[in-house]
């Protein structure tokens, strides 16, 4: 998309950030896509079981985490906008804020897991929990991975590693973080809400 006010990057039609991250994002989405499809099949054959145990999940916690991730994605958008204006300091601050929200997500999810595990619930409890714990934990690891990426990018931004004309790294990190957010936006209604 061309922005007439942007006096900065040579905008092209190709996706923002490094092309390699998009190959990676596509592969990651394929992984989650397969998981969602398998979940759909498993649920179809075990409707009652899934509906019953879904009620034991903490939807408030899930909702808090959804809002957290969406907000963090917004922060990342602001970070990209900031660096396009050449403001590396502000870009860095937005990225650190996004990372802080990532940490909040981890904490909330951690409390949820703690609750389940204290009740003796695990992967083997039943098929629903196999999927719930398996898929959310896999996503959990992606949040951690995203945080590491944001950490590196924020650190580099703080040291003036990006400019208005060269900030592929920021866009690359941002793209990955949006993917992590996007997956959760599907995962939350799928596992916590739909019945």
């Amino acid at each position, binding site marked *: 998309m061309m922005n007439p006010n942007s006096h900065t990057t040579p905008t092209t039609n190709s996706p923002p950030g*490094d092309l*390699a*991250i998009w*190959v*990676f994002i596509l*592969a*990651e989405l*394929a*992984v989650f896509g*397969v*998981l969602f499809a*398998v979940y759909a099949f*498993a649920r179809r054959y075990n409707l009652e079981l899934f509906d019953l145990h879904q009620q034991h999940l903490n939807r408030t916690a899930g909702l808090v985490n959804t809002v957290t991730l969406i907000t963090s994605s917004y922060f990342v958008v602001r970070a990209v906008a900031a660096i396009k204006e050449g403001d590396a300091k502000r870009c860095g601050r937005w990225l650190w804020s996004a990372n802080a929200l990532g940490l909040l997500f981890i904490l909330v999810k951690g409390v949820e897991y703690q609750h389940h595990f204290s009740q003796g619930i695990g*992967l*083997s409890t039943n098929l629903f929990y*196999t*999927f719930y714990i*398996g898929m959310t934990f896999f996503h959990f690891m992606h949040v951690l991975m995203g945080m590491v990426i944001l950490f590196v990018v924020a650190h580099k931004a703080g040291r003036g590693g990006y400019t208005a004309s060269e900030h592929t790294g920021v866009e690359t990190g941002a793209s990955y973080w949006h993917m992590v957010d996007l997956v959760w936006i599907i995962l939350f209604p799928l596992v916590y809400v739909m019945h």
Partner: protein
Amino acid sequence: MQYQSQMVAKPYFIAAIGLFIGQIIFGLIMGWQYVVGDFLFPEIPFNVARMVHTNLLIVWLLFGFMGASYYLVPEESETELYSPKLALALFWIFLVAGALTIVGYLAVPYATLAQVTGNELLPTMGREFLEQPTITKIGIVIVALGFLFNIAMTVLKGRKTTVSLVLLIGLTGLALLFLFSFYNPHNLVLDKMFWWYVVHLWVEGVWELILGAILAFVLIKTTGVDREVIEKWLYVIIAMTLITGILGTGHHFYWIGTPEYWQIIGSVFSALEPIPFFMMTVFAFNMVNQRRREHPNKAAVLWALGTAVMAFLGAGVWGFLHTLSPVNYYTHGSQITAAHGHMAFYGAYVMIVLTIISYAMPMMRGRAAANSEKAQVMEMWSFWLMTVAMVFITLFLTAAGILQIYMQRMGGDAAQPFMVVQENIALFYWLREGAGFVFLTGLILYVVSFFVGGEERKETA
């Protein structure tokens, strides 16, 4: 060759090829025993031939990986190897230990070997692929530690590149995961589970990092494409390898007594294991298409591209064939597994070692960059003979496997017993054996190509 110490790779490569020949000879013996059961009995029973065939494969690939590391790490780090003497000493230790082990397998019954080597002090013998006597295993650990130390010190004192970093992670993982071969829980389920920590996490985990690093190195050298571009691909590929490969271990846990959720985890993640291999194919062809130079070593480029394609087919496609748990319920431990095993090992690991040998050997033997036209033509012939033969071995075994499953496992009450089915599908075993001889011809040609002289091929603009 830029650094004198790279020369230590040469004995490693020579030993690798020597053991490779041994592996193929034992493969042919076994292939014959498949159809003529008492061939060479009692001198070389089938189980011994099989053990030698698989163990030699692992040992020569390790020689290849070590040689590759000694060759490429100094060049990547832009410094001489930390200690070429240590590298040479470890070479002889490893070769002698390996040779003694094989002699032990062939000379005395396995139980006697266990007794002689003091297995009861720390029992580790008797598990498929990890049959080595405990003292050999300890030797392997010592060699691996010395090797890692040497490589790590070289990387630390010189330039740090993505290629050497990925290689180092892969090699460290290889050494660490091997330690599970010392862990033999009494519980059979746990025993099997940890056995896969070595076997699966090697070939579908850390070895893929080694493969990726070597392939990236050869592509950087032969195509002249920017290191940055190639390294980026390498990152993406190894990330995907680890995401799918680690949890993909679950596809070995279906029927060994582990919890049921492994059916789902194993199926989903291992089904995605072809993705990094597919990326590798796209990557290799892209880099060669974008090449900025015409490297005179055409044979090495052919091996590199061949690796990418055959690894995808053998490990990716043939692995996917029987990885989903409902499918694997029928195919488990049949000739389908053998088909996959053959093409995956050849495509991914045999070919990558031959790639680096093909690239490095001419320089270590005094050429500027490549062998003569004539030698390369012969090498390419050997490439096609071995590769096509392997495709046929795989297809014949796949056909045998499908028939086997159909007759032995799907017939309900009419299902036939194992040995009867083996008789019925003997034709495919004969065909496989024939393809095996073609493979050996290719291998002989490969060795001969080293001795073909002639004027060196020059770089064309």
